[in-house]
């Protein structure tokens, strides 16, 4: 594969996309089809329904990005910045999506396959599951990722494999030049397998800006369980479009958490879950804490195909300064999906005078015996609570930090890893006291 494509990035995306010829590998056909879909649809505009409130083109034009597929490396010191105090875990370090084995400590054992995507195309699960989640092909930037990604992390856990400790996946984004990087991951948990994956990001201080367009495919098969935490530690020199496409088999459990913290000017999280078996449980929890002129867009889709499934979605936002957030919660309950329970909540604290939230639930229900609900709130600090805390000697800033932590507790209380829970609560406190 050619490493860096030296034509103006934005021009290539909008005018001459065929110049980005697909690389010669076993995925050639898949890549070519994805590129054709991308070329046909073009980049999303504000007229694209799913992108009405996020002007992605403005962010793509912001810097003269280059496609960067060259493996980059980092140092232990940089990777250690992602450390979570008290967390006993395996660690996997990816630099711009490329596995850096020297800094990684992988779980090993029978039935565990963890490695670079580029080295895993022969794995049994790869051809069966790669790019099979149907919502991927309708998302323009996901098609671009499929067409041109270089590498990422492949995980396949065979039946009954239970990983004993969380896997801490540290993403380092670094480049000398403004770079457009496209990590691609595929994680498959076969029957009865179980794992916890915590993703963190590290951004070394540097002039160049990294724009990540990453895609993670998650396959949780029969009675398997995945706890998936995505901690988005922000940085000024980062732009993040993160697509997670999950599918679940019967009796499986998938718990997805996203924590979007300050500084990254653009965050777009696409999250779609397709329920292909019955009797599943899905928890989608989000917390976004945005400052400055940050833009955070959580775009979620729960696709209920099968009966007797439960999904519970709760996104909470704290918006300071002129931060802008978007939440879209689409729930599609198909005709066969009787006895579905699908709940959705989006609550916000608008603490900046010019902070803004656009929240839109989209419920499409074609079955008649279901329980579905959605709710939205936007509010400020409770004056009575503030006075009560201050009347006990707690300063205004600490009182605010306590109340923001309290507001977040429906999400943070659900974190099943105590060290991560402490870490997130500590982050909230530090941000509010700053």
């Amino acid at each position, binding site marked *: 594969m050619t490493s860096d494509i030296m034509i103006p990035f934005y021009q290539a995306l909008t005018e001459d996309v065929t110049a980005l010829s697909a690389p010669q590998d076993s995925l050639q056909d898949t890549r070519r089809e994805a590129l054709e879909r991308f070329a046909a649809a073009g980049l999303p505009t504000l007229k694209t329904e799913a992108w009405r409130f996020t002007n992605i083109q403005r962010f793509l034009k912001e810097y003269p990005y280059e496609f960067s597929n060259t493996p980059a490396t980092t140092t232990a010191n940089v990777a250690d910045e992602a450390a979570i105090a008290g967390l006993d875990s395996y660690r996997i370090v990816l630099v711009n999506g490329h596995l850096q084995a020297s800094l990684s400590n992988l779980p090993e054992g029978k039935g565990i396959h963890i490695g670079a995507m580029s080295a895993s195309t022969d794995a049994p699960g790869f051809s069966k599951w790669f790019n099979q989640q149907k919502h991927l092909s309708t998302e323009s930037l996901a098609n671009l990722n499929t067409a041109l990604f270089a590498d990422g992390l492949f995980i396949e856990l065979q039946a009954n494999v239970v990983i004993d400790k969380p896997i801490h996946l540290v993403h380092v984004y670094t480049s000398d030049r403004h770079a457009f990087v496209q990590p691609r991951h595929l994680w498959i948990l076969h029957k009865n397998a179980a794992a916890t994956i915590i993703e963190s990001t590290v951004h070394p201080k540097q002039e160049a800006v990294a724009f990540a367009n990453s895609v993670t495919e998650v396959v949780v098969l029969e009675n398997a369980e995945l706890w998936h935490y995505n901690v988005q530690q922000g940085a000024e020199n980062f732009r993040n479009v993160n697509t997670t496409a999950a599918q679940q088999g019967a009796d499986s459990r998938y718990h997805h958490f996203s924590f979007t913290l300050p500084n990254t000017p653009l965050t777009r999280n696409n999250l779609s879950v397709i329920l292909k078996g019955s009797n599943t449980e899905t928890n989608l929890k989000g917390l976004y804490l945005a400052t400055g002129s940050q833009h955070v867009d959580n775009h979620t889709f729960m696709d209920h195909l099968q009966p007797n499934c439960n999904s519970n979605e709760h996104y909470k936002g704290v918006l300071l300064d002129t931060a802008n957030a978007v939440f879209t919660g689409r729930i599609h309950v198909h005709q066969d999906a009787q006895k579905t329970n699908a709940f959705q909540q989006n609550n916000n604290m608008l603490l900046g005078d010019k902070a803004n939230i656009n929240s839109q639930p989209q419920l499409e229900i074609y079955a008649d015996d279901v329980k579905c609900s959605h709710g939205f709130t936007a509010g400020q600090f409770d004056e009575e609570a503030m006075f009560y805390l201050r009347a006990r*000697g707690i300063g205004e800033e600490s*009182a605010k930090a306590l109340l923001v932590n309290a507001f977040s*507790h429906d999400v943070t209380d659900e974190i099943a890893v105590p060290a991560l829970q402490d870490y997130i609560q500590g982050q909230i406190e530090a941000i509010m006291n700053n």
Partner: protein
Amino acid sequence: MLTIKNLHAEVEGKKILKGINLEINKGEMHAIMGPNGSGKSSLASVLAGRDNYTVTEGEVWFNGKNLLEMSPEDRAREGVFLAFQYPVEIPGVSNINFLKTAVNEVRTYKGLPPLEAKEFLKLTKEKQQLVDFNTNLMNRSLNEGFSGGEKKRNEIFQLAMLNPQLAILDETDSGLDIDALRIVSNGVNKLRDAEKSFVVITHYQRLLEYIVPDFVHVLYNGRIIKTGTKELALELEEKGYDWLKEAEHEKESV
């Protein structure tokens, strides 16, 4: 310790306090009684620094410092404590974490190091017993789902933990059954000492059977219209407030 001079305050343009004068010395227990709407709770709120009240005239000095110029948190750190009539429920803030934050912020203000976890726990255990405060409530969210009695006991427990110089109890007795009233009063009595002063705001003489005041003041229409000793409370119980109100109106019409 506390000197209130000619204090006038209003809320949303409505005059509530119309010239309060009160002197409280170390170790004294003052009761403030009066009919509904007389300004009792407003006085407590103004002293604690609730910001919807505007002080239009007068002064409040606490240990030689101008109380009215301080933020609510600084008043608390200086040693003024308000036990709320309606303690606020704050889901998601655990009682213990709240207390630890409060105790340590007050200590930091006084130039003391934060309490070690072990010392804090010891102090908590000791003070809990004062008001028979259930340990299970410690780890629950602050006041969330507490019964009326549990909330009031929590106020007195916080009072014990923060150990202020001046405690203002705003209708702490309201809504309590006789057992809870006894527990709360016993807690307050155990906290009484020569250094600490109390202002007990109440509508009922009943509380004063358990907490015996040195002085009783009657607040009516934003002013203290009568001051006496504990016998005054008994007289009020017997005769109600009307005789005082009438006397006050006669004075005004002169």
